[in-house]
């Protein structure tokens, strides 16, 4: 099979590294016979999780077949390259939905497992891995193993959130949730500052199955952390009005055709946009029905929106602060951000429930903040290191699927179950064959930085 050597990047378009790509079309061609190998689905992790500088990247996009779908029980089995968008097309008309979904549907099933992604419902339903019934994993020695929460549970929970470093995820079996309609009943609640926003999100009277808050990252002083909590649930039979046409659906999707000039997103334009959005979205006081796509995947309507951040790309900084100190920690982070006068086009706050069993999984009980930061200069990385310190101080962690710059030391401090994970990784991949630019940056499997090799 031919390979393609080409510069490659994640969704954030930073960093850009030369990788050797291989794109199998047959399941049997998902092979682990190369040293330095990482699988890549849709390339929607932001940093270097699916990059392999001077190594092999195995594209799974063509190994995307749906193998089983039990319409009675809502159980589906598919090859890891299948995207959530493709899955939704099949399951939604039949009354089923994804149990957990990230903010884009253009991600692969395998990627969702490897990053143990979360949605707006983590505080109720946990993360993606909590709904996975089984994984067929292709190990370094070429063998195919089935792991489930009951069968080889150690390998299962090392693979859920394991960033593709335990083997190639070949097939995934997933439990779906039933829905009555494909609409979501949404309510917006306005908060004038961070304190109000936290009060809203903690209040079960406002909370819903899906809750997410948009924060005006440019607001300062007394308005710091002002935002809108957007709560929703799948519309019930009573809420669903027959004849209602989903206003968001027939819209033609648009695409950003080229890299925007870096200056287009500046503190002034973002402030203006945020103020406008705050008033517009905040003006919707009554509950309303929304199609599932505009609610869960607003940015999917704009193809290549990552080009908005210009040629140098951007970093998405997503961290979680444990429950007890969440308000204080998030406030400190927003303060740092606001003081830096670096624009963040997007700032999103979500609530997390209890930490799951995935050994390298990101979520833990608390609040998670995500910031999109365009790369203008090296100063950004100084700021982000400062944010790491704040996160560490409050006992939180940074999300690896978004990360492009965390240090090995900070990683070790943020992920205390790493040693346990590494033991399992070493037992199935003693030569550290599965490695990525991310894993090498974080010192995974290296003596000294990344912990002991056995």
């Amino acid at each position, binding site marked *: 099979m*031919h390979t*393609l050597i080409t510069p490659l990047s994640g969704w954030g378009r930073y960093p850009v590294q030369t990788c050797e*790509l291989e*794109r199998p*079309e*047959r*399941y049997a061609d998902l092979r682990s016979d190369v040293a330095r190998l990482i699988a890549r689905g849709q390339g929607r992790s932001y940093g270097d999780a699916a990059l392999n500088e001077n190594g092999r990247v195995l594209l799974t996009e063509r190994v995307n077949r*749906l*193998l089983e779908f039990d319409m009675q029980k809502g159980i589906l089995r598919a090859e890891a390259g299948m995207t959530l968008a*493709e899955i939704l097309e099949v399951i939604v008309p039949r009354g089923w939905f994804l149990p957990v979904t990230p903010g884009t549907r253009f991600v692969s099933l395998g990627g969702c497992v490897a990053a143990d992604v979360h949605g707006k419902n983590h505080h109720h339903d946990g993360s993606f891995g909590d709904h996975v019934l089984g994984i067929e994993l292709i190990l370094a020695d070429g063998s195919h193993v089935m792991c489930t929460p009951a069968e080889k549970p150690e390998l299962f929970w090392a693979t859920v959130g394991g960033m593709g470093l335990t083997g190639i995820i070949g097939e995934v079996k997933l439990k779906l949730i039933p829905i009555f309609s494909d609409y979501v009943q949404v309510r917006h609640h306005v908060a004038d500052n961070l304190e109000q926003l936290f009060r809203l999100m903690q209040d079960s009277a406002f909370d819903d199955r899906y809750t997410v808050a948009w924060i005006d990252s440019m607001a300062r002083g007394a308005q710091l952390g002002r935002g809108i909590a957007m709560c929703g649930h799948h519309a019930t039979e009573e809420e669903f009005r027959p004849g209602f046409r989903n206003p968001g659906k027939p819209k033609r999707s648009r695409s950003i055709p080229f890299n925007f000039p870096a200056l287009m997103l500046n503190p002034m334009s973002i402030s203006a946009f945020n103020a406008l959005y705050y008033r517009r979205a905040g003006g919707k006081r009554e509950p309303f029905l929304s199609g599932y796509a505009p609610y869960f995947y607003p940015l999917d309507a704009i193809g290549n929106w990552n080009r908005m951040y210009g040629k140098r790309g951007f970093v998405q900084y997503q961290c979680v602060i444990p429950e007890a100190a969440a308000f204080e920690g998030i406030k400190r982070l927003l303060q740092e951000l606001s003081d830096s006068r670096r624009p963040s086009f997007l700032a999103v706050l979500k609530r997390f429930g209890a930490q799951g069993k995935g050994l390298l999984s990101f979520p833990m009980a608390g609040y998670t903040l995500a910031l999109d930061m365009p790369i203008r200069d090296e100063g950004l990385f100084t700021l982000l290191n400062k944010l790491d310190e704040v996160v560490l101080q409050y006992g939180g962690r940074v999300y690896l699927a978004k990360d492009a710059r965390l240090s090995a030391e900070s990683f070790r401090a943020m992920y205390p179950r790493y040693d346990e994970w590494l033991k399992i990784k070493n037992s199935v991949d003693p030569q550290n064959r599965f490695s990525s630019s991310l894993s090498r940056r974080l010192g995974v499997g290296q003596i000294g930085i990344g912990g002991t090799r056995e």
Partner: protein
Amino acid sequence: MSEAVLILGATSAIARATANAFAARGNALYLASRDADELRRIAADIHLRYGVEVHHGLFDAEATDSHGAFLKSVVTAMPKISGVVLAFGYLGDQQAARDFSVGAKVIAANFTGAASILSHCANYFEPMKSGFIIGISSVAGDRGRQSNYVYGAAKGALSLYLQGLRNRLHPSGVRVITVKPGFVDTAMTYGLPGLFLVASPQAIGERIVHALGKSADVVYLPWFWRYIMQIIRHIPEPIFKRMKL
């Protein structure tokens, strides 16, 4: 049961895209190839995504002796077969020109095997006075070039064969369409240097099904390859032989 289409060489990217496009129209399918595991996966996928009936069975283009029995088993499983897409092909590599044992395989897969199964298909459709045969040839068959002339010769022969077959079956009302794709983004071409205007398999698959509703006998995909090949065919040989194509 809706009208069914037999896809020969069903595990290639173009074949899969073509099968998807037929399934999206509601056609039932019979998928055939050498790879049992892939057939099972693709058949399940198409059935679950489009809700159409999908059968599959083993088929080896080079095992020409088995073709008669193969077609019988297909029409037994799906009596309403209304058309065939011949989608198998084998590019080989540079070796094919120097080493005839490799070249023979290229000819066997792309031409001999195709001529064999197509003769059985033609004999089946002719008395029924209906049906279609879509043969996926290649622009490489339009002119011999040093880089892949064994493949080109086999595909060129296939194009001629389809032309003759079209002539024979026209009175019987059986459509024969020759499809000549240019560069398509498949495993066959992935990572090859010097490709341009590369089309997606999805686009090719949709256009193949679309061609059934049109009257053209020879379809270049995408369309502009007709004009590119017209130019390439008209370069005088004394000049062409000096070119590195």
